[in-house]
């Protein structure tokens, strides 16, 4: 009986899944490599930056900004999945919320690592307590708190419930954190608000090609996020199924 469940599920994912999943993954890889090409080679230099070191380092932003975008998107998504989970109480929504947080954590780690590497040649310090850096750090800490909370609860149903509550509460704290920290002080260049960059150090004008490259990279990272989510959710659901079977077979 159990073998039948196992093998039938396996063939199902292999017949429908592998082909779609493989195509999707190869497509994502292709898009990411294109983004890499655009960011490193195709995009023009930012004209108003003085030293070559600064001009090269500026190219980090083509991957840094999309990674931050995906990080926030993942957080928002996990809050939404958590709300749906609390209403519908279906495992898959909890699996999606957890996956979104994990993927978001990976992207935020990229942001946290690449940010200082850009800041060093541009601002001549690795770290400043600038609002965007600070808010990214807080998000990163919230994600870690979420993972730690899940790790500290034994009952799986309670784990899902508490994690959902925490994800929702923390998603509300992000905008307030953002506002409060922004008023505290700022030096990060406001790249998105084009035209008004001269005030903040390290800012640069957005020529059309620079903007197009950035837009392509944001789209590429979003596809990357969806692809990672797809695999992570599949893995999580499979893990839970195996867990159930294990209990079924071992403690029968």
């Amino acid at each position, binding site marked *: 009986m159990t073998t039948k469940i*196992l093998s039938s599920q396996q063939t199902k994912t292999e017949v429908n899944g592998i082909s779609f999943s493989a195509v999707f993954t190869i497509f994502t890889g292709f898009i990411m490599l294109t983004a890499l090409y655009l960011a490193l080679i195709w995009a023009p230099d930012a004209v108003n930056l003085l030293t070559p*070191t600064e001009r*090269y380092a500026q190219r980090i932003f083509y991957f840094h900004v999309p990674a931050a975008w995906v990080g926030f998107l993942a957080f928002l998504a996990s809050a939404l999945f958590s709300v749906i989970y609390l209403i519908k109480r279906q495992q898959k929504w909890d699996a999606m919320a957890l996956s979104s947080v994990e993927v978001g954590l990976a992207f935020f780690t*990229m942001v946290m690592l690449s940010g200082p*590497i850009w800041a060093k040649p541009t601002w001549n310090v690795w770290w400043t307590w600038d609002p965007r850096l600070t808010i990214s750090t807080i998000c990163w800490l919230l994600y870690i708190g979420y993972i730690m909370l899940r790790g500290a609860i034994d009952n799986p149903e309670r784990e899902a419930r508490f994690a959902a509550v925490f994800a929702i509460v923390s998603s509300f704290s992000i905008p307030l954190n953002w506002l409060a920290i922004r008023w505290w002080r700022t030096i990060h260049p406001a790249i998105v608000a084009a035209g008004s960059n001269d005030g903040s150090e390290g800012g640069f004008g957005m020529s059309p090609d620079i903007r197009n490259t950035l837009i392509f990279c944001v789209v590429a990272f979003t596809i990357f996020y969806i692809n990672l989510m797809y695999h992570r959710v599949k893995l999580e659901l499979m*893990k839970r199924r195996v867990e159930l079977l294990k209990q079924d077979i071992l403690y029968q």
Partner: protein
Amino acid sequence: MNEMIYLFAGYAVIWLAAFVFIFSMVSRQQSLQKDVEMLEQLTQQKQDV
């Protein structure tokens, strides 16, 4: 070349983070696969008995 060191380091850490995450998923998948195989063996034995 020296001017590109930050650029190189920036992209290196970004891809490193991505691959660490992907490899963690792969390793979890593999351990899951092992569990499934073990369960299959167990049920096989039970059926044989």
